[in-house]
């Protein structure tokens, strides 16, 4: 039985907590969870650390999982809280990463669209793409926590409004308006960068 079939079976099962196999969940979602945490924290080692903590916590709480939401939204909720706690912990220790904006010039966002839509062929173009990517990461890091989480969930993780609403436990209308504000915030930052 494939992992996907198992996942489907898991979500349909009545005695949910008894039939969940932790290692399947881990295999299925480790990249998604790591990617979410990494996108929020922006630091590889910290993301590894927090992802480990998330899965160990999931393992410990698996028996209490009722199956009212999907495993994915449950996992993401735990991961977001863990990432937030890690940032809070470092902030209380007066630890913050600093970002340099020495190479920032002026351009516009339509140009960004054009640059990214080209196929990457030459090393120069590859370098430019990496440079643009680096600037987008910088911009993401400058967003407020709420906005960053929403942008990451929607645009990097590709969750639907419904899934975001379930994960963050907020109404869909709030998801829409917060996402609008988050993108406004990101647009302003990117306009300063490009």
């Amino acid at each position, binding site marked *: 039985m494939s992992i996907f079939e198992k996942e489907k079976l898991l979500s349909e099962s009545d005695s949910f907590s008894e039939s969940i196999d932790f290692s399947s969940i881990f295999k299925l979602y480790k990249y998604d969870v790591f990617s979410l945490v*990494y996108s929020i924290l922006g630091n590889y080692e910290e993301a590894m650390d927090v992802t480990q903590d998330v*899965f160990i916590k999931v393992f410990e709480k698996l028996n209490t999982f009722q199956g009212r939401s999907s495993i994915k939204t449950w996992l993401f909720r735990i991961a977001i809280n863990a990432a937030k706690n890690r940032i809070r912990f470092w902030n209380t220790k007066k*630890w913050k990463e600093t970002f340099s904006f020495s190479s920032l010039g002026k351009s516009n966002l*339509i140009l960004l669209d054009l640059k990214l839509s080209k196929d990457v062929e030459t090393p120069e173009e590859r370098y430019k793409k990496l440079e643009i990517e680096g600037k987008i990461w910088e911009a993401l890091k400058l967003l407020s926590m709420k906005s960053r989480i929403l942008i990451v969930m929607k645009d*990097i993780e590709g969750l639907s*409004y419904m899934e975001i609403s379930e994960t963050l436990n907020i109404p869909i209308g709030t998801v829409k308006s917060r996402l609008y504000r988050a993108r406004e915030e990101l647009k302003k930052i990117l306009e300063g960068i490009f």
Partner: protein
Amino acid sequence: MRCKDFRILINEYVDGEITREDEIKLFRHLATCELCQLYLRDLRGVKKGVRAVNVPFPDEGLDYVVLSKTRFRRIKPISSIFKSLGFHIFNGIFRENLRDMIIGFPMAVVIFLFIFSLLSPLPVALENVVRQRYVVNSRSEEINKMIYNILYLENTYQFTPEGLSLDDVYIPRLSSIPLKNFAEKHIEDSEIDRIELIVTVTKDGDAHIDRILELKNPELKRDLIKTLNCSLALPAISDGRKINSKIAIRFEKVVVTG
């Protein structure tokens, strides 16, 4: 509707979550509003830019830590044990929780008494199966196959107060940044292949070096102390309390072939 309301709809449109009715309304508005047209183009650029960023893959250390940490700790619910043994007789009679309690409580008492009779004082040093690995890439192009492992050694955690079960303890961790800085700055150019040290992590989240094993270069020793003594740490947690702990770290030069 104002332009602001339409921009929320533009976000829904770009995300592919707009309803048919709203889409018609939006396109009617876009036909007459240049600012919203520009907003739509900008938003597509922003979304495309964010979608294009690459997120690295977690290394195999994640599998190692999570699977080893969880391998021995899964406790199957008693009801499922009985189900697997074919004890379906209780299913129609008792609610599942009640059945678990009735069967589980005497079993728990028997098991507890059995273990209690076997155990003399609990061991001081706890066996630890967790290993955290950081890899530092070499700066030199010529030796780009060389990496450094900064390992948290196995079997070296010592917790105070004594006699805690590993299940109750969240492992302590150091901030990896000073460790990486040290490895990059010193180990790459030196002839030393390995440095091992014991670090005390206090419950307040401070780290300081307890002892360094087999490192004779005094300058390197001084710098290592200086680097790690000002690093931050996550203290070990036991029963919801932060506790003092010791942690062993190994800097190790590893040559990767192939």
